[in-house]
């Protein structure tokens, strides 16, 4: 059998037989405890700075972020963004309870469909599972309520993310997933697919010069809900509900 042939060839190369039981147990232990390696210090910051680092990194990678004080402010933020970008107000949305609970009826002109994305969609709205400050990266695990196609097919991808879901390093996001996720099929915690998304799609294949908007979205717009009092910008934490949403998003990559 080919499998045995390959394993045999590996063992011959390593000049040993199958690993002894104690050795295997040790390696099994390494898999089970999955020890962390060195984590860069750049994301080890007080909460407000961690969120600020996330935003800075998203913008560095040509994404845009708009902070809103609460879920109630999301429909207006989205309606305004779509109008400003001259985009259609009809779009598919992830059927995630956190998104369906948003009071969309306040903006009756938004035509929202709870479904996966199709090739004809120009805009999509995804639910953000976690944000990673280290590189401004969104973590988007697939689930019935978070279809993968919403990350890929539309020219403009919008993502609603709660500030309390921003972590410093990737390792912290893995630990959240391990703690929160159960996959019935495998008995483990990994869903079928997890996309880590850092900015809108791009290519440098033509003369090594960066152009945004390759096969995936050309714009990535994150609506960040400030649900974490400890993560508010310094000085605002004690103030009444943050009123002003800091400056409109910069022109997204064009």
């Amino acid at each position: 059998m080919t499998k045995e042939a390959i394993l045999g060839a590996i063992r011959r190369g390593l000049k040993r037989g199958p690993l002894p039981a104690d050795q295997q147990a040790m390696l099994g232990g390494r898999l089970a405890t999955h020890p962390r390696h060195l984590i860069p210090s750049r994301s080890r910051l007080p909460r407000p700075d961690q969120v600020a680092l996330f935003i800075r990194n998203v913008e560095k990678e040509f994404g845009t972020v708009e902070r809103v004080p609460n879920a109630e402010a999301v429909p207006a933020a989205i309606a305004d963004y779509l109008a400003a970008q001259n985009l259609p107000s009809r779009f598919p949305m992830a059927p995630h309870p956190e998104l369906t609970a948003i009071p969309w009826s306040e903006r009756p002109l938004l035509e929202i469909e709870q479904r996966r994305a199709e090739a004809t969609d120009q805009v999509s709205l995804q639910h953000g599972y976690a944000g990673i400050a280290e590189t401004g990266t969104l973590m988007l695990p697939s689930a019935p309520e978070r279809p993968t196609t919403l990350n890929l097919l539309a020219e403009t991808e919008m993502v609603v993310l709660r500030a309390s879901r921003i972590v410093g390093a990737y390792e912290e996001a893995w630990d959240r997933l391990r703690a929160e996720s159960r996959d019935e099929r495998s008995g483990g915690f990994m869903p079928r697919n997890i996309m880590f998304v850092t900015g809108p799609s791009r290519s440098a294949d033509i003369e090594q010069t960066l152009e945004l908007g390759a096969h995936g979205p050309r714009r990535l717009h994150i609506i960040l809900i400030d649900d974490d009092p400890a993560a508010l910008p310094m000085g605002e934490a004690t103030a009444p509900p943050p009123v002003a949403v800091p400056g409109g998003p910069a022109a997204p990559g064009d």
Partner: protein
Amino acid sequence: MVAITSPAFKENARTALADPGLQKALGTAKGAFLQRRAQAVANLPEFEQLRDIGRDIKNHTLANLDFYLEAYEAKVKAAGGQVHWCSTADDARAAVLEICRKANARTVTKGKSMISEELGINAHLEAHGIRPVETDLGEYILQLRQEHPSHIIAPAFHLNREDWEADFRRLHTDLPPDRVFAERRDILAEARTKLREKFLQADVGITGANFLIAETGSSVIVTNEGNGDLTQTLPRVHIALASIEKVVPTLEDATSLLRLLARSATGQDFSVYTTFSTGARRPADLDGPEEYHVVLIDNGRSNMLGTEFQEMLRCIRCAACMNHCPVYGAIGGHAYGWVYPGPMGSVLTPSLIGIEKTGMLPNASTFCGKCESVCPVKIPLPKMMRHWREREFERHLTPATQRSNLALWGWFARRPALYRAATRAANAALGLLGRGKGSFHSLPLAGGWTAGRDLPVPEGGTFMARYAKEQRRR
């Protein structure tokens, strides 16, 4: 499999040096990757420590490769996927074809994958009536041109913008012939539209894998365009091609290597899309492939274990070594004559297809050491090229006239463009090594020279650079 022209390296190099289009493309690209990498590394103070960690993770995995592959397979099965073990390229091609046939596939979309090039998957599918469509922008134009990649992460490294425009006009005949490509973006937009149709038609999507994860049974791809994700999300069947050394134990191990990969490759902190696939679509999912197959390929890797080339199996295919190589920078990737160019190719190619078929390749070096100094997993590439030379020498494959390193130097010296590029880099390296010494009494590989004299440590620019400067001054 891609035809091998490595034995004709010298002729290939000569042709490359005389090719104005290629020289223009190399000139345009030169520096872009280097600057971006340097910037990304400067922004991460822990980068050097992470290189040691990356090396150690890979060494640990290779020492226990049999264990981790079996652990990996068990997890893939638990998640509803299948692993197809393949010893040879023939086995792998047959496995891919069989999966495609069972899926009644007519069209197959493909994400960028070097192992697919190594196996010659496209030609095999075509020969059996299945149409493979490359979807990475660079790979797409190469498929139109019926060429092979000249770089492992930027396949169309050797092309200029005019080439893109001309090929699109020539081959996208359904579009108005007088359309304007005012900017690079217009080329990108046309490719996006063309390929959208293909993504939607495809029955099977084939990707490579940057890593396999034993802890979870996941395959990982890293892209900027999103083509790999469309390839593995939209069709009914997803096939991931991966060689056995891609496995790492845990998500934490993969994460540490991912911190090195994008920075070393394109100088990004992280690529746009880093995606972990684990098994097939779950019952309630609204999208994703119904079948998930991993074609797990040896094709010569296990033979490298326990040899002086084992360390090459740490390679994470970032391309930093070729981006920083003066020889690659002067002649491009095609001259290397097979799938893998640059320093990593000069070591890997003879390991995979045999030194008797690759001839000169391990000599395609100035031993400036730049490749090793940037390699994120610290592979001692120059040392390994020397091992190949020794083996080659022992086998008496080397023509007598070349049995000295200075003969190679002579070969370089007679090719001014190559020589200038090479000495600039070597000069910088020697300057560092010999800083404060004034001269070398002996130098590796230059015994014939230092036996009779000391080699002065270079100061200032190369002779040719100084000469040119003097000329201008007059």
